[in-house]
Protein backbone atom coordinates (compact mmCIF):
# COMPACT_ATOMS: atom_id res chain seq x y z
CA UNK A 1 0.00 0.00 0.00
CA UNK A 2 1.32 3.43 -0.92
CA UNK A 3 -1.25 5.59 0.80
CA UNK A 4 -4.61 5.54 2.50
CA UNK A 5 -6.90 8.22 3.80
CA UNK A 6 -10.32 8.83 5.20
CA UNK A 7 -11.99 12.12 4.39
CA UNK A 8 -15.18 13.13 6.16
CA UNK A 9 -18.30 14.11 4.26
CA UNK A 10 -17.37 17.69 5.10
CA UNK A 11 -14.08 17.27 3.28
CA UNK A 12 -11.86 17.06 6.35
CA UNK A 13 -8.94 14.71 6.21
CA UNK A 14 -9.53 12.73 9.39
CA UNK A 15 -6.81 10.17 9.00
CA UNK A 16 -4.13 9.25 6.52
CA UNK A 17 -0.90 7.49 5.89
CA UNK A 18 1.42 7.83 2.95
CA UNK A 19 4.97 7.59 1.92
CA UNK A 20 6.88 10.79 1.39
CA UNK A 21 5.85 11.40 -2.20
CA UNK A 22 2.13 11.91 -1.59
CA UNK A 23 1.11 14.95 0.33
CA UNK A 24 -1.96 14.88 2.55
CA UNK A 25 -3.47 17.76 0.61
CA UNK A 26 -3.16 15.64 -2.53
CA UNK A 27 -5.02 12.82 -0.81
CA UNK A 28 -7.69 15.30 0.16
CA UNK A 29 -7.93 16.54 -3.41
CA UNK A 30 -8.14 12.98 -4.77
CA UNK A 31 -10.87 12.10 -2.27
CA UNK A 32 -12.81 15.21 -3.26
CA UNK A 33 -12.47 14.29 -6.92
CA UNK A 34 -13.66 10.73 -6.29
CA UNK A 35 -16.61 12.08 -4.36
CA UNK A 36 -17.50 14.37 -7.25
CA UNK A 37 -17.39 11.42 -9.66
CA UNK A 38 -19.70 9.37 -7.46
CA UNK A 39 -22.00 12.33 -7.04
CA UNK A 40 -22.15 12.88 -10.81
CA UNK A 41 -23.04 9.21 -11.28
CA UNK A 42 -25.81 9.47 -8.72
CA UNK A 43 -27.22 12.37 -10.69
CA UNK A 44 -27.24 10.11 -13.76
CA UNK A 45 -29.21 7.44 -11.85
CA UNK A 46 -26.16 5.21 -11.79
CA UNK A 47 -25.37 5.28 -8.11
CA UNK A 48 -22.04 3.75 -7.10
CA UNK A 49 -20.31 3.53 -3.74
CA UNK A 50 -17.00 1.95 -4.69
CA UNK A 51 -14.47 2.76 -7.36
CA UNK A 52 -11.39 0.89 -8.51
CA UNK A 53 -9.05 2.68 -10.88
CA UNK A 54 -6.05 1.00 -12.45
CA UNK A 55 -3.09 3.24 -13.20
CA UNK A 56 -0.77 0.73 -14.82
CA UNK A 57 0.37 -1.58 -12.05
CA UNK A 58 -1.01 0.69 -9.36
CA UNK A 59 -4.58 0.91 -8.18
CA UNK A 60 -6.66 3.55 -6.51
CA UNK A 61 -9.56 2.15 -4.51
CA UNK A 62 -12.21 4.38 -2.97
CA UNK A 63 -15.41 3.75 -1.12
CA UNK A 64 -17.97 6.25 0.00
CA UNK A 65 -20.16 5.89 3.05
CA UNK A 66 -22.54 8.16 4.90
CA UNK A 67 -19.73 9.53 7.06
CA UNK A 68 -17.08 10.04 4.42
CA UNK A 69 -14.83 8.55 1.80
CA UNK A 70 -12.07 6.01 2.33
CA UNK A 71 -9.36 5.69 -0.28
CA UNK A 72 -6.36 3.46 -0.65
CA UNK A 73 -3.60 3.70 -3.22
CA UNK A 74 -2.03 0.32 -3.82
CA UNK A 75 1.22 -0.64 -5.44
CA UNK A 76 -0.35 -3.60 -7.23
CA UNK A 77 -3.28 -4.56 -9.40
CA UNK A 78 -6.35 -5.86 -7.62
CA UNK A 79 -9.25 -8.19 -8.16
CA UNK A 80 -12.50 -8.69 -6.28
CA UNK A 81 -10.90 -11.09 -3.82
CA UNK A 82 -8.18 -8.59 -2.97
CA UNK A 83 -10.78 -5.87 -2.50
CA UNK A 84 -12.83 -8.09 -0.25
CA UNK A 85 -9.76 -8.89 1.79
CA UNK A 86 -8.70 -5.22 1.89
CA UNK A 87 -12.02 -4.07 3.28
CA UNK A 88 -12.15 -6.98 5.72
CA UNK A 89 -8.89 -5.60 7.12
CA UNK A 90 -9.78 -1.95 6.95
CA UNK A 91 -13.39 -2.07 8.16
CA UNK A 92 -12.67 -3.14 11.75
CA UNK A 93 -10.15 -0.33 12.08
CA UNK A 94 -12.58 2.19 10.70
CA UNK A 95 -15.38 0.89 12.92
CA UNK A 96 -13.06 1.30 15.89
CA UNK A 97 -12.68 4.90 14.79
CA UNK A 98 -16.45 5.33 14.60
CA UNK A 99 -16.78 4.91 10.83
CA UNK A 100 -18.87 2.27 9.16
CA UNK A 101 -18.26 2.05 5.43
CA UNK A 102 -21.33 -0.12 4.99
CA UNK A 103 -23.60 2.77 5.94
CA UNK A 104 -24.30 4.33 2.62
Amino acid at each position, binding site marked *: *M*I*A*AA*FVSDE*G*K*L*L*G*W*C*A*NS*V*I*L*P*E*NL*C*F*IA*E*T*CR*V*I*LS*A*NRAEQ*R*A*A*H*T*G*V*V*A*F*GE*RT*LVFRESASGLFL*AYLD*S*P*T*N*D*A*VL*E*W*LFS*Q*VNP*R*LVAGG*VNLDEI
Partner: protein
Amino acid sequence: MLHQALILSSNREYAQTMRQGLLKLGHEHTRVDVEVDALRAMQLAPQQYELILLDTVLDTTNGLQLLQLLKNQSPASKFVIVSDASDETSRAIAYQSGADFFLERPLTPEAIALAIEAIKGFFKPIRPGEPPQNEDENPLVNLADIVQMRCLSGDSVLLLVRSKQQSGDIFIFRGEVFHAQYPGKGGEEAFRDMIGWDEGRVRIRSIKLTHVPPRTIEVPYRQLLDRIEKSAAPGPDITQTGGELFIVSAEPASDTAHLSVVHEAPPLDKAKAAPAVFPSPNVSPQGETPLPQVNSHWKINLTGELLEGSQVADPERCAFITSFIYRKMADVAVALEVDYFNHMTLLGPHLQQVLVADNMGVRHAVFDAAWTNEEQRIQYVKWCCEQSF
Protein backbone atom coordinates in the same frame (compact mmCIF):
# COMPACT_ATOMS: atom_id res chain seq x y z
CA MET B 1 8.32 33.80 -8.58
CA LEU B 2 6.91 30.75 -10.29
CA HIS B 3 3.37 29.76 -9.33
CA GLN B 4 2.31 27.10 -11.78
CA ALA B 5 4.17 25.25 -14.51
CA LEU B 6 3.72 22.29 -16.79
CA ILE B 7 6.31 19.90 -18.18
CA LEU B 8 5.34 17.99 -21.32
CA SER B 9 7.85 15.27 -21.94
CA SER B 10 8.02 11.60 -22.77
CA ASN B 11 11.23 11.38 -20.76
CA ARG B 12 9.95 10.76 -17.25
CA GLU B 13 13.32 10.84 -15.54
CA TYR B 14 14.20 14.19 -17.03
CA ALA B 15 10.69 15.50 -16.29
CA GLN B 16 10.88 14.57 -12.63
CA THR B 17 14.35 16.05 -12.22
CA MET B 18 13.28 19.24 -13.95
CA ARG B 19 10.15 19.38 -11.82
CA GLN B 20 12.23 19.33 -8.66
CA GLY B 21 14.35 22.14 -10.06
CA LEU B 22 11.36 24.27 -11.04
CA LEU B 23 9.73 23.83 -7.66
CA LYS B 24 12.74 25.64 -6.21
CA LEU B 25 11.80 28.71 -8.26
CA GLY B 26 8.50 29.01 -6.49
CA HIS B 27 7.02 28.93 -3.05
CA GLU B 28 5.36 26.27 -0.94
CA HIS B 29 2.18 26.37 -3.02
CA THR B 30 3.90 26.30 -6.39
CA ARG B 31 2.55 23.54 -8.59
CA VAL B 32 4.52 21.86 -11.35
CA ASP B 33 2.53 19.30 -13.32
CA VAL B 34 4.05 16.65 -15.55
CA GLU B 35 2.25 15.21 -18.55
CA VAL B 36 3.74 12.55 -20.77
CA ASP B 37 0.93 12.24 -23.28
CA ALA B 38 0.42 14.92 -25.92
CA LEU B 39 -3.25 14.14 -26.46
CA ARG B 40 -3.99 14.46 -22.80
CA ALA B 41 -1.96 17.63 -22.64
CA MET B 42 -4.43 19.11 -25.09
CA GLN B 43 -7.16 18.52 -22.51
CA LEU B 44 -5.46 20.78 -20.01
CA ALA B 45 -6.16 24.50 -19.84
CA PRO B 46 -2.77 26.01 -20.70
CA GLN B 47 -3.89 29.41 -19.42
CA GLN B 48 -3.34 28.24 -15.88
CA TYR B 49 0.39 27.77 -16.44
CA GLU B 50 2.88 30.60 -16.46
CA LEU B 51 5.53 28.31 -17.82
CA ILE B 52 5.26 25.31 -20.13
CA LEU B 53 8.29 23.16 -20.95
CA LEU B 54 7.68 21.17 -24.06
CA ASP B 55 9.72 18.49 -25.83
CA THR B 56 10.17 18.83 -29.58
CA VAL B 57 8.97 15.28 -29.94
CA LEU B 58 6.34 13.77 -27.66
CA ASP B 59 6.07 10.12 -28.55
CA THR B 60 4.50 10.34 -31.98
CA THR B 61 3.40 13.95 -31.71
CA ASN B 62 5.29 16.91 -33.06
CA GLY B 63 5.94 19.14 -30.06
CA LEU B 64 6.32 22.21 -32.22
CA GLN B 65 2.82 21.80 -33.64
CA LEU B 66 1.52 21.35 -30.13
CA LEU B 67 3.41 24.49 -29.13
CA GLN B 68 1.59 26.53 -31.78
CA LEU B 69 -1.73 25.18 -30.59
CA LEU B 70 -1.03 25.91 -26.93
CA LYS B 71 0.45 29.31 -27.72
CA ASN B 72 -2.79 30.30 -29.44
CA GLN B 73 -4.76 29.30 -26.38
CA SER B 74 -2.43 30.88 -23.89
CA PRO B 75 -0.31 33.67 -25.36
CA ALA B 76 0.66 34.92 -21.91
CA SER B 77 2.40 31.69 -20.91
CA LYS B 78 6.14 31.30 -21.40
CA PHE B 79 7.06 28.36 -23.59
CA VAL B 80 10.40 26.59 -23.40
CA ILE B 81 11.18 24.08 -26.10
CA VAL B 82 13.44 21.26 -24.96
CA SER B 83 15.29 19.38 -27.65
CA ASP B 84 17.81 16.58 -27.83
CA ALA B 85 19.40 18.38 -30.77
CA SER B 86 21.12 21.72 -30.31
CA ASP B 87 21.81 22.69 -33.91
CA GLU B 88 20.93 26.11 -35.23
CA THR B 89 18.16 24.83 -37.45
CA SER B 90 16.34 23.27 -34.49
CA ARG B 91 16.69 26.51 -32.56
CA ALA B 92 15.43 28.60 -35.43
CA ILE B 93 12.42 26.39 -36.00
CA ALA B 94 11.59 26.45 -32.30
CA TYR B 95 11.66 30.23 -32.14
CA GLN B 96 9.69 30.50 -35.37
CA SER B 97 7.07 28.25 -33.84
CA GLY B 98 6.62 30.66 -30.96
CA ALA B 99 9.03 29.39 -28.31
CA ASP B 100 10.24 31.95 -25.79
CA PHE B 101 13.33 29.95 -25.09
CA PHE B 102 15.18 27.01 -26.58
CA LEU B 103 16.89 24.52 -24.35
CA GLU B 104 19.09 21.59 -25.20
CA ARG B 105 17.90 18.81 -22.92
CA PRO B 106 20.00 19.02 -19.76
CA LEU B 107 21.31 15.61 -18.82
CA THR B 108 23.74 16.30 -15.99
CA PRO B 109 23.06 17.97 -12.64
CA GLU B 110 25.23 20.89 -13.71
CA ALA B 111 23.33 21.31 -16.97
CA ILE B 112 20.02 21.13 -15.13
CA ALA B 113 21.15 23.78 -12.67
CA LEU B 114 22.15 26.03 -15.57
CA ALA B 115 18.82 25.43 -17.30
CA ILE B 116 16.89 26.28 -14.15
CA GLU B 117 18.94 29.43 -13.75
CA ALA B 118 18.10 30.43 -17.32
CA ILE B 119 14.40 29.77 -16.80
CA LYS B 120 14.54 31.74 -13.58
CA GLY B 121 15.13 34.79 -15.74
CA PHE B 122 11.50 34.68 -16.81
CA PHE B 123 10.38 35.22 -13.27
CA LYS B 124 12.73 37.94 -12.14
CA PRO B 125 10.94 41.17 -11.31
CA ILE B 126 12.97 43.17 -13.79
CA ARG B 127 13.89 41.92 -17.23
CA PRO B 128 16.31 43.69 -19.57
CA GLY B 129 14.54 46.07 -21.87
CA GLU B 130 11.28 45.88 -20.04
CA PRO B 131 9.77 48.04 -17.34
CA PRO B 132 9.67 46.49 -13.90
CA GLN B 133 6.73 44.21 -13.37
CA ASN B 134 4.24 45.77 -11.06
CA GLU B 135 2.66 43.53 -8.46
CA ASP B 136 -0.32 45.85 -8.56
CA GLU B 137 -0.83 45.27 -12.28
CA ASN B 138 -3.91 43.34 -11.29
CA PRO B 139 -5.35 45.40 -8.46
CA LEU B 140 -6.86 43.91 -5.34
CA VAL B 141 -10.54 43.31 -5.87
CA ASN B 142 -13.40 41.73 -4.01
CA LEU B 143 -13.72 38.23 -5.41
CA ALA B 144 -17.39 37.76 -4.51
CA ASP B 145 -18.24 41.02 -6.31
CA ILE B 146 -16.37 39.96 -9.42
CA VAL B 147 -18.04 36.54 -9.47
CA GLN B 148 -21.44 38.15 -9.05
CA MET B 149 -20.75 40.67 -11.80
CA ARG B 150 -19.51 38.02 -14.23
CA CYS B 151 -22.47 35.77 -13.50
CA LEU B 152 -24.92 38.63 -13.88
CA SER B 153 -23.40 39.42 -17.25
CA GLY B 154 -23.79 35.80 -18.35
CA ASP B 155 -20.06 35.57 -19.04
CA SER B 156 -17.99 32.48 -19.75
CA VAL B 157 -14.63 33.13 -18.14
CA LEU B 158 -11.85 31.49 -16.24
CA LEU B 159 -10.86 33.60 -13.23
CA LEU B 160 -7.27 33.07 -12.18
CA VAL B 161 -7.35 34.03 -8.52
CA ARG B 162 -4.25 34.85 -6.58
CA SER B 163 -4.08 35.60 -2.87
CA LYS B 164 -0.97 36.35 -0.83
CA GLN B 165 -0.41 32.66 -0.21
CA GLN B 166 -2.34 30.67 -2.77
CA SER B 167 -3.71 30.60 -6.26
CA GLY B 168 -6.67 28.88 -7.84
CA ASP B 169 -9.18 28.92 -10.66
CA ILE B 170 -12.89 29.62 -10.87
CA PHE B 171 -14.73 28.58 -14.02
CA ILE B 172 -17.84 30.57 -14.85
CA PHE B 173 -19.84 29.34 -17.81
CA ARG B 174 -22.80 31.23 -19.21
CA GLY B 175 -23.36 33.08 -15.98
CA GLU B 176 -23.06 30.17 -13.57
CA VAL B 177 -20.16 28.99 -11.46
CA PHE B 178 -19.32 25.56 -12.88
CA HIS B 179 -16.11 24.66 -11.13
CA ALA B 180 -13.48 25.93 -8.73
CA GLN B 181 -10.15 24.46 -7.84
CA TYR B 182 -6.91 25.15 -6.09
CA PRO B 183 -4.11 22.75 -5.20
CA GLY B 184 -5.63 20.26 -2.79
CA LYS B 185 -9.28 21.01 -3.27
CA GLY B 186 -11.99 21.34 -5.87
CA GLY B 187 -15.72 22.02 -6.20
CA GLU B 188 -17.94 24.05 -3.94
CA GLU B 189 -15.62 23.79 -0.99
CA ALA B 190 -12.77 25.17 -3.01
CA PHE B 191 -14.98 28.05 -4.10
CA ARG B 192 -16.00 28.76 -0.52
CA ASP B 193 -12.37 28.73 0.62
CA MET B 194 -11.27 30.99 -2.20
CA ILE B 195 -13.96 33.55 -1.46
CA GLY B 196 -12.52 33.72 2.04
CA TRP B 197 -8.88 34.14 0.99
CA ASP B 198 -7.35 37.34 2.34
CA GLU B 199 -10.80 38.40 3.52
CA GLY B 200 -12.03 38.36 -0.05
CA ARG B 201 -9.46 40.82 -1.40
CA VAL B 202 -7.44 39.10 -4.10
CA ARG B 203 -5.87 39.69 -7.49
CA ILE B 204 -7.72 38.31 -10.48
CA ARG B 205 -6.88 37.73 -14.10
CA SER B 206 -9.74 36.65 -16.32
CA ILE B 207 -9.53 34.62 -19.49
CA LYS B 208 -12.36 34.02 -21.89
CA LEU B 209 -13.52 30.42 -21.79
CA THR B 210 -13.68 28.73 -25.14
CA HIS B 211 -14.88 25.33 -23.96
CA VAL B 212 -17.46 23.97 -21.54
CA PRO B 213 -15.66 23.32 -18.27
CA PRO B 214 -16.37 20.26 -16.12
CA ARG B 215 -19.19 20.98 -13.69
CA THR B 216 -18.66 20.24 -10.03
CA ILE B 217 -20.86 23.04 -8.68
CA GLU B 218 -24.54 22.62 -9.37
CA VAL B 219 -25.83 25.31 -7.02
CA PRO B 220 -26.96 28.56 -8.70
CA TYR B 221 -24.46 31.33 -8.08
CA ARG B 222 -26.84 33.49 -6.02
CA GLN B 223 -27.50 30.62 -3.64
CA LEU B 224 -23.80 29.83 -3.56
CA LEU B 225 -22.81 33.35 -2.58
CA ASP B 226 -25.67 33.57 -0.07
CA ARG B 227 -24.53 30.39 1.62
CA ILE B 228 -21.00 31.69 1.89
CA GLU B 229 -22.13 34.98 3.29
CA LYS B 230 -24.13 33.18 5.95
CA SER B 231 -21.36 30.78 6.86
CA ALA B 232 -18.73 33.58 6.92
CA ALA B 233 -16.39 31.64 4.65
CA PRO B 234 -14.18 29.40 6.76
CA GLY B 235 -10.59 28.96 5.62
CA PRO B 236 -9.14 25.89 4.04
CA ASP B 237 -9.04 22.81 6.21
CA ILE B 238 -6.48 20.77 4.39
CA THR B 239 -3.97 21.33 7.12
CA GLN B 240 -6.13 19.42 9.55
CA THR B 241 -4.28 16.19 9.29
CA GLY B 242 -4.35 15.20 12.88
CA GLY B 243 -6.47 12.12 12.39
CA GLU B 244 -6.29 9.03 14.53
CA LEU B 245 -7.14 6.45 11.99
CA PHE B 246 -3.69 5.75 10.66
CA ILE B 247 -0.18 6.43 11.73
CA VAL B 248 1.91 8.66 9.53
CA SER B 249 5.39 7.53 8.83
CA ALA B 250 7.66 9.91 10.69
CA GLU B 251 10.47 9.51 8.23
CA PRO B 252 10.30 9.44 4.48
CA ALA B 253 10.13 5.85 3.38
CA SER B 254 11.04 4.56 -0.01
CA ASP B 255 9.81 1.09 0.79
CA THR B 256 6.06 1.34 0.61
CA ALA B 257 5.67 -2.02 2.33
CA HIS B 258 6.39 -0.29 5.62
CA LEU B 259 3.34 1.83 5.15
CA SER B 260 0.80 -0.91 4.88
CA VAL B 261 -2.32 -0.32 6.86
CA VAL B 262 -2.54 -4.04 7.31
CA HIS B 263 0.26 -6.34 8.16
CA GLU B 264 -1.14 -9.63 7.05
CA ALA B 265 -0.42 -11.48 3.87
CA PRO B 266 -2.87 -11.30 0.97
CA PRO B 267 -6.11 -13.30 0.98
CA LEU B 268 -6.04 -16.67 2.62
CA ASP B 269 -8.09 -18.32 -0.03
CA LYS B 270 -5.50 -19.18 -2.62
CA ALA B 271 -8.08 -19.72 -5.29
CA LYS B 272 -9.36 -16.22 -4.77
CA ALA B 273 -5.91 -14.80 -4.34
CA ALA B 274 -5.01 -15.16 -7.95
CA PRO B 275 -3.48 -11.98 -9.32
CA ALA B 276 -5.73 -9.62 -11.16
CA VAL B 277 -6.13 -10.68 -14.73
CA PHE B 278 -7.17 -7.40 -16.26
CA PRO B 279 -5.48 -7.25 -19.61
CA SER B 280 -3.04 -4.49 -20.25
CA PRO B 281 -3.91 -2.20 -23.17
CA ASN B 282 -0.24 -2.30 -24.03
CA VAL B 283 -0.24 -6.02 -24.64
CA SER B 284 -1.68 -7.26 -27.86
CA PRO B 285 -4.36 -9.75 -26.95
CA GLN B 286 -4.68 -13.05 -28.68
CA GLY B 287 -7.96 -14.11 -30.20
CA GLU B 288 -11.32 -12.44 -30.48
CA THR B 289 -13.14 -11.75 -27.26
CA PRO B 290 -16.92 -11.44 -27.52
CA LEU B 291 -18.58 -8.41 -26.00
CA PRO B 292 -20.11 -9.49 -22.69
CA GLN B 293 -23.76 -8.81 -21.96
CA VAL B 294 -24.07 -5.14 -21.05
CA ASN B 295 -27.01 -2.84 -20.45
CA SER B 296 -25.43 -0.24 -22.65
CA HIS B 297 -22.01 0.82 -23.83
CA TRP B 298 -20.49 3.68 -25.75
CA LYS B 299 -17.25 5.32 -26.75
CA ILE B 300 -16.12 8.94 -26.76
CA ASN B 301 -13.03 10.56 -28.17
CA LEU B 302 -10.75 12.72 -26.07
CA THR B 303 -12.71 15.84 -26.88
CA GLY B 304 -15.86 14.29 -25.42
CA GLU B 305 -17.69 13.49 -28.64
CA LEU B 306 -19.73 10.31 -28.78
CA LEU B 307 -18.25 8.07 -31.45
CA GLU B 308 -20.36 4.97 -31.11
CA GLY B 309 -22.77 3.34 -28.73
CA SER B 310 -25.36 0.70 -28.15
CA GLN B 311 -28.55 0.91 -26.08
CA VAL B 312 -27.64 4.48 -25.23
CA ALA B 313 -30.80 6.24 -24.06
CA ASP B 314 -29.42 9.76 -23.89
CA PRO B 315 -26.24 9.99 -25.99
CA GLU B 316 -25.42 13.54 -24.98
CA ARG B 317 -25.61 12.82 -21.26
CA CYS B 318 -23.66 9.59 -21.65
CA ALA B 319 -20.87 11.33 -23.53
CA PHE B 320 -20.84 14.11 -20.96
CA ILE B 321 -20.54 11.86 -17.93
CA THR B 322 -17.77 9.78 -19.52
CA SER B 323 -15.88 12.89 -20.48
CA PHE B 324 -16.42 14.32 -17.01
CA ILE B 325 -15.01 11.21 -15.32
CA TYR B 326 -12.12 11.18 -17.78
CA ARG B 327 -11.21 14.78 -16.98
CA LYS B 328 -11.56 14.25 -13.24
CA MET B 329 -9.37 11.20 -13.37
CA ALA B 330 -6.80 13.18 -15.35
CA ASP B 331 -6.60 15.50 -12.34
CA VAL B 332 -6.13 12.50 -10.05
CA ALA B 333 -3.39 11.12 -12.31
CA VAL B 334 -1.59 14.46 -12.10
CA ALA B 335 -1.91 14.46 -8.31
CA LEU B 336 -0.54 10.92 -8.13
CA GLU B 337 2.12 11.70 -10.73
CA VAL B 338 1.21 8.66 -12.75
CA ASP B 339 0.19 7.98 -16.29
CA TYR B 340 -3.50 8.11 -17.10
CA PHE B 341 -5.80 5.31 -15.94
CA ASN B 342 -6.17 2.14 -17.96
CA HIS B 343 -9.53 1.10 -16.63
CA MET B 344 -11.93 2.05 -13.93
CA THR B 345 -14.71 0.12 -12.25
CA LEU B 346 -17.59 1.71 -10.39
CA LEU B 347 -19.63 -0.61 -8.23
CA GLY B 348 -23.14 0.26 -7.13
CA PRO B 349 -26.09 -1.53 -5.60
CA HIS B 350 -27.90 -1.91 -8.90
CA LEU B 351 -25.37 -1.14 -11.60
CA GLN B 352 -21.72 -1.65 -12.26
CA GLN B 353 -19.74 0.40 -14.73
CA VAL B 354 -16.43 -0.10 -16.45
CA LEU B 355 -14.46 2.60 -18.25
CA VAL B 356 -11.48 1.73 -20.40
CA ALA B 357 -9.20 4.47 -21.68
CA ASP B 358 -6.53 4.56 -24.30
CA ASN B 359 -4.83 7.37 -26.17
CA MET B 360 -7.72 7.77 -28.55
CA GLY B 361 -10.77 7.70 -26.34
CA VAL B 362 -12.73 6.16 -23.53
CA ARG B 363 -15.13 3.24 -23.66
CA HIS B 364 -17.84 3.04 -21.03
CA ALA B 365 -20.15 0.12 -20.25
CA VAL B 366 -23.00 -0.25 -17.80
CA PHE B 367 -23.78 -3.67 -16.37
CA ASP B 368 -26.65 -4.92 -14.28
CA ALA B 369 -25.16 -5.72 -10.88
CA ALA B 370 -27.54 -8.64 -10.42
CA TRP B 371 -25.95 -10.77 -13.09
CA THR B 372 -22.49 -9.27 -13.53
CA ASN B 373 -19.36 -10.71 -12.02
CA GLU B 374 -15.70 -9.91 -12.23
CA GLU B 375 -15.22 -12.24 -15.16
CA GLN B 376 -17.59 -10.24 -17.33
CA ARG B 377 -15.97 -6.97 -16.39
CA ILE B 378 -12.57 -8.37 -17.29
CA GLN B 379 -14.01 -9.66 -20.53
CA TYR B 380 -15.21 -6.16 -21.35
CA VAL B 381 -11.78 -4.67 -20.70
CA LYS B 382 -10.25 -7.32 -22.92
CA TRP B 383 -12.82 -6.68 -25.61
CA CYS B 384 -12.03 -2.95 -25.47
CA CYS B 385 -8.32 -3.61 -25.82
CA GLU B 386 -8.97 -5.70 -28.90
CA GLN B 387 -11.21 -3.03 -30.37
CA SER B 388 -8.43 -0.49 -29.94
CA PHE B 389 -6.11 -2.69 -31.91
